[in-house]
Structure formats: structure tokens, C-alpha cells
């Protein structure tokens, strides 16, 4: 299974790992946007999660507590966003951008003294005999637990949105907050919970970068992953399983370019490194050129603040 010096099994297995941070963040943001809130601070919440998770893991020596710490840090930062947009009715776009800048700065400050340390190892959890299957085994069943967790979260989000009452209310709030309010639903409470969930997921995604992918702490470690996650939500037209496809597509391309570099491709490294971002832009352009379809699926109240004035 080798093409041009690239082992396909290794490539696919590694793309699943590469996609985890953006997949977690994208699922979180998808829920937030389904509730009608546009939080552009994903990058900030991810990097806060990255340093928060790193500190927690290094201090306690437990990678699981590290991920928990990352989720808490992300949720804490998203609570600031919730306070500003839900209570003080600040503009969501501006607040989200500020959140990213704030997160980058704070993470850099908190990360002083953590450079060059190795975090505790997050081991693979091979799923018994399944992991010994040829080809499929290494691709699907020999990863660390966060990989399985991210896929389980996609399934759970899909099921909750589709089949449960809380999911229905969440979609209703994102569709028309006035109507939801008229029926007696607590619009801002539901949005607060969605925002906190989004923050926790982004934080976990960030922690995966600093604890597993890299694994160490450097300033600006997320390197734009939060923005990719935002793009993937639109790419997925706010549907969980499509977010999975989007994340794997992006993860695949970033792995491919690494492998191409290693295989001594004639294309200059710079072009290969920018490939994933170019492809993301290209896909978004194609998606939104069919205006009707992508537009149809966007939550109608996305980005609008709600105040129960009447």
C-alpha cells in the first residue's frame, strides 16, 4: 500500500489523529451556532485550553486531568463571551475576535516557564483483537481514547440535535429567538449552556494539540486551528457528520503535505504548507456559490443578540 513513498495505512491512521483538535472544536462551535450564537473566539478558547490542559497535566501527572483542565479553561473563557454578549448585548463578532486576541495573550503569559517540558504520555488504547485486523486495525482501532471520544461526540451531538427535546429547543432558539421566547423558553439560558459546551470542546481540542500532537508548550501552538474549525462548521452546513468529513478532509491534507515533504516532493515546502488552508478557502467558496443550499441550513437567528424587551 505505498504510493510515491507514502504508506496509505499510516497516512489514514495519522489523519484521524491530526483531525481531533479541529473536530472537537468544530462540534462545539456547531452546537453554539445552532443555538444562534456566532462565537469567533474558537482560536482563543483552543489556545487557553492548550495551556490550561498542559499545566493541569504537568502538575498532576495525569493526562486525563489535563484534558479536563483544558475543557474547564476553554469553558471559563467562553463564560466571558457569554457574559458580554448575553448580558451586556455586545456585538458577537467583535467580542469573538477580542476573545481570540485575549486568549492568545493570556496563554502566552500563563505559559511562561512551561517551555521545553514534556507532558505525561497519553497512551494508545488498542481495541483488543480488532486492532490486529490487517489494514483496518491500525487505521480505526489502535488510537488513544480522545480519538474515539471525538467520534462518539459527533454521534452524540447528532442524536441529541435530531431526536431529543433539548436538541429541538436548541434548534428552535437558533431559528427564531422571538418565537422561542413567545412560547416561554429561556433563550439566554439555553444559549449560555451552548456557549459553555462550545468553550469546553474547543478547550479539549486545544489540550489535544499541546498534550498529544506536539507534545509540548510553545507560544501560538494552535496556529490557526480554531479558524479552520469555524470554516468546517460552515462547510458542514451545521450538520455533525459532515463536520467529521470536513475535519478528516483537512486533517488528511495536512498529513499528506507532511508526507509529501518527507518523500522529497519537487513542489516547494511553502506551497505544501499552505495547501490545507487553500483547500479550505476553495471548499468554502464552492459551498457558498450554491447560495440557496448553504444559506438554507444556516440558523436563521445566527449572530443576533436577544433581549426580552417586550
Amino acid at each position, binding site marked *: 500500500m505505498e504510493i510515491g513513498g507514502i504508506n496509505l495505512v499510516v497516512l489514514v491512521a495519522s489523519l484521524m489523529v491530526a483531525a481531533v483538535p479541529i473536530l472537537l472544536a468544530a462540534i462545539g462551535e456547531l452546537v453554539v451556532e445552532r443555538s444562534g450564537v456566532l462565537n469567533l473566539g474558537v482560536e482563543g478558547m483552543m489556545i487557553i485550553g492548550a495551556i490550561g490542559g498542559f499545566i493541569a497535566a504537568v502538575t498532576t501527572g495525569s493526562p486525563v486531568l489535563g484534558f479536563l483542565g483544558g475543557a474547564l479553561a476553554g469553558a471559563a473563557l467562553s463564560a466571558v463571551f457569554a457574559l458580554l454578549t448575553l448580558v451586556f448585548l455586545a456585538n458577537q463578532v467583535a467580542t469573538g475576535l477580542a476573545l481570540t486576541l485575549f486568549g492568545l495573550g493570556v496563554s502566552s503569559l500563563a505559559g511562561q516557564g512551561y517551555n521545553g517540558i514534556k507532558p505525561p504520555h497519553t497512551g494508545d488504547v488498542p481495541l483488543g483483537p480488532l486492532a490486529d485486523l490487517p489494514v483496518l486495525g491500525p487505521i480505526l482501532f489502535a488510537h488513544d481514547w480522545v480519538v474515539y471520544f471525538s467520534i462518539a461526540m459527533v454521534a452524540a451531538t447528532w442524536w441529541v440535535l435530531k431526536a431529543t*427535546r433539548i436538541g429541538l429547543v436548541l*434548534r*428552535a432558539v437558533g431559528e*427564531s429567538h*422571538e*418565537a422561542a421566547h413567545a412560547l*416561554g423558553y429561556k433563550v439566554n439560558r439555553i444559549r449560555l449552556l451552548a456557549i459553555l459546551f462550545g468553550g469546553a470542546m474547543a478547550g479539549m481540542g486545544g489540550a489535544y494539540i499541546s498534550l498529544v500532537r506536539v507534545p509540548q508548550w510553545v507560544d501560538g501552538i494552535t496556529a490557526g486551528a480554531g479558524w479552520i474549525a469555524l470554516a468546517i462548521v460552515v462547510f458542514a452546513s451545521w450538520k455533525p457528520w459532515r463536520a467529521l468529513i470536513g475535519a478528516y478532509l483537512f486533517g488528511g491534507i495536512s498529513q499528506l503535505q507532511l508526507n509529501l515533504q518527507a518523500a522529497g516532493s519537487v513542489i516547494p515546502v511553502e506551497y505544501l504548507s499552505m495547501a490545507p488552508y487553500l483547500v479550505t478557502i476553495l471548499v468554502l467558496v464552492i459551498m457558498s456559490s450554491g*447560495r*440557496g443550499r448553504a444559506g438554507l*441550513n444556516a440558523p436563521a437567528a445566527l449572530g443576533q443578540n436577544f433581549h426580552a424587551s417586550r
Partner: protein
Amino acid sequence: MTGTGTEPGTARPELLRIEGVTKAYPGVVANADIGFTVGAGEVHALLGENGAGKSTLVKMIYGLVKPDSGAMHLHGRPYAPAKPAEARRLGVAMVFQHFSLFEALTVAENVALGMETPPPMRELATRIRAVSEEYGLPLDPSRLIGDLSAGERQRVEIIRCLLQDPKLLIMDEPTSVLTPQEVEILFRTLRQLSAEGTAILYISHKLEEIRTLCDAATILRRGRVVGTCIPKDRSAREMAEMMVGATLTPPQRVPGPKGEVALGVSDLSVASPIPFGTALKDVSFTVAKGEVLGIAGVAGNGQDELLLALSGELKTDPDKLRVNGQPAGDLGPTERRRAGLVAAPEDRYGHAAAPDMSLVENAFLTAGLRRQLARGGFIDWAKTRAFAEEIIADYDVRTPGPDVAARALSGGNLQKFLIGRELLQGAGVIVINQPTWGVDAAAAAAIRQKILDQAAAGAAVVVISQDLDELLEVSDMFAVLNEGRLTRPRPVQGLSMDEIGLMMGGAHGMEVAHHVE
């Protein structure tokens, strides 16, 4: 009139009693010392102009707003719902004027959202089917709301209420978006409910409907009860004058001579830029100088798209649209204004006006070109302010001054300002969508009079509206938009209500179910 269950004069058991209810908002008393009673099975009308306090009152009954003082009793027991869920549990349901359906969700999901403990989706779908058959309102539970007509959407709301077996059903302006046939079917359903003992609190501006449907009426003016009456014993005119507190004069029209064709549209077809919108298909009509063409139709049948295509926000082939004989289909709004066509869209906050800008600035936005309010790329503020003041004076706009933000004006006052802004530009072709939507009777009459004055002065006018009475009052020619197609315009004189109903495409298959009841 039969079918209301109880003969007039028979005592009905009391269902809802309201005593001395008062609610004040900063700067305005919405309700002051309101009191009335509704009997079981009674159809009770609440009458009043915009801002008379009807909406606040029903919101208190439905638990969305808390009264400052006063008491309400339901079934003789004190009733003070803290939230809508509590009101629903006690048997009070409400059909909203707008704002309460979710376009991207299905019928069943929308119904589930309005219930406290909805059954599983499949069971709910069966119950929706059963109830909708029983009351002659056929409905497919799995369809998306965005794909339904306005009449069908209203059925969703009604069925959502009926599934909870209400004792009191509140209806806020239920017929404003229905065809005449749909209104008739709605009334049959309401009479059936009333006969079963459900009381109905009915809000409407349409006095003839109230006369045919309601057993009693309470009239509000500026937040106070100013009278009660038995609608059947009064004329619509009498009730209108009780509402307004003054004598009303219908608009006067001076039939002028018709000139040559000023606006010609031929085979215009455009896709809709709006999600869930309706594409226009082969729309053709002409309007002569001094003529008013009224375009009726239930909301969502292409009215918004037609306005966009006429105003120039949607462009087409040059020859599809001609202004004074010149091809104008490929011109944008500014070039069309230069060519002599002005347009006033329906949505006041956001489309027709920039809500946070002052009236002076808003006056400049569309009239800058035709009134020559700019010189060498700079705005002539003195001239613009004079123009804004001219509109305010001519159109009786109640505002502290021309420098307040458009948002600060009430809907009716802003509408007068925006209509005035277009009509005072001296354009030969005028297109208006919903000239009096949400405007009270006195202001609406004033706006209609101004439209007729423009036509008498030689302008060609297109009025798109969902208010049939309004169209019959101002139009010379009448046409209907139905699923993006325009019927052949016909002279208004000699047109009967039945013919209009047929032009509007009947009641979307509603009659069938009623014949089997």
C-alpha cells in the same frame, strides 16, 4: 347566525373575569383599569387602534407580561400566570399574529415545542392528523414550515393550541394573511369550537368579520375600555368611530384621465434571492399615467420578489421592464430613480429605512438624486433638512424633530415618513409594498388619500398589499400574485368578492375536508 352554541340572551357560565388591570411601561401606560368578562363558549372581540393596548392585555392573560395591579379570575378562581407554560396548563392557548413558528423545523416539531409534555414524534404526528381532520384543517406533520402558505402556517398554530384542549383561545389578528375562502373555513372551525364550549378572545381590525363572528366586543382606546357592544347590532362604521373617538371620512378619489403607459412589464421571470422565497414566473402588466394597479395575494406568493424586481434590486433583461417606453430592466435602483421610478418596500426597519440614522439622513438616502440634495459629491444638509421637514409637515409625521433616529418613531409614523419621502420626489412611476401594514385606521386613511392624490396628478402607481379592502379602495385595476404568477389585471369596478377569491387561487385545498364533516 347559528352555530355559536348559545342563543343570545342565555346566561353563559363565566370563564374569565378581568378587573382593574393596569400595566405601565416607561413613558406610557399600556393598560389602565381594564375590566371585562368572557363567558364559556363566547366569541369575544377586542377592538382598538394600534397602540390601544390590546396586545399587552392578551400577553398578560397568556402570562408573557405581569400586570402592575388588578386581578384576573379564571373559572372563578384567582388567575395570575407567571409564565406561558402555566397559562397553557390552566387551559389558555394563544395563536400569535407572527413570531411563533420556526421555518426550518417541521410541523410536528413546531407543535411539540408548544406543548408541555409532548408524546413521541410518531404518536404526535398521528394526533396532529386526527385533530386536523376533525376540525377541517388538513395538515401534513412532516412538512417544513418554510414550505407552507400563510394559511397553512396558521393551521399549525391553531392545531398546536387545540391539542391541549383549551378553554380559552386567544387569536391575535388571525385573518390578516388569509384569502376570503380561508377566512370562511377558519370561522367554521371557530364556531365549532365555540359550540363545544371553548371561549375565543378575538383581536382584529376587520370590523365586518367581527360582526359576522363575535358575540360581544370590548373597545379599547389609549389603554382604557371606552365601550362595549354587541357587534351584530352595530355597523362597522359605528364601531370604527368608537375605536378612533372621531368621525371617519373615507378617501376621496377624483377620477382623472388615463395617459399613455408609464410602466410596462413583460414576461418577467426571476429566481428568488430569499431563502424559502417564491420565484416570479412570466409576470406581465402595464400601468398608465394616472392609474393605480392593485396587486393582491397572500404573503409569500412573490410580493417581496416583485418589489425587488421593480425597484431594481433584482435586475433582468433590459426589455422586460420599461419605464416611459425606455428599457430599464438592467438598471439598478439609483438609475431607475433617475429614469423616474421610485419604490417603497414593506419592511420599514432595515429595508426602507436605516433604523439608527436620523430622519434627515434617511430622507437623503433615496431622495438625494431626484431632489438634488447633493452638490459636487457633498450633501447639502440645509436642503436635505428642509426636505425632511417638508415630509414631516405634509404627511403629519408625529416626531420631536427631523434629527431623531428612524427607530424612535412608531411604526405608523415612520411609515408615513417613508411613503412621503417617495411620493414627494415627483416620480412618474411609484411602487409601494404594503403601504399601511400595521398602521392604524386614521393614518392608513391619510396614506391612501396621498396615494390617490399622486395618481390624480398623473403618476402611475403600483400598490402591493394583502389588505383587500385597501386595494378595492385605491385601485383602478386589480390583479393577484399567486405562487409567483400574476393574474391578468382586471378593472376593479364590477369585481365581486367571489371572483377575487377565485383569482387568489381558492383556499389551497381546504374546502375538501370540510365537506365531509
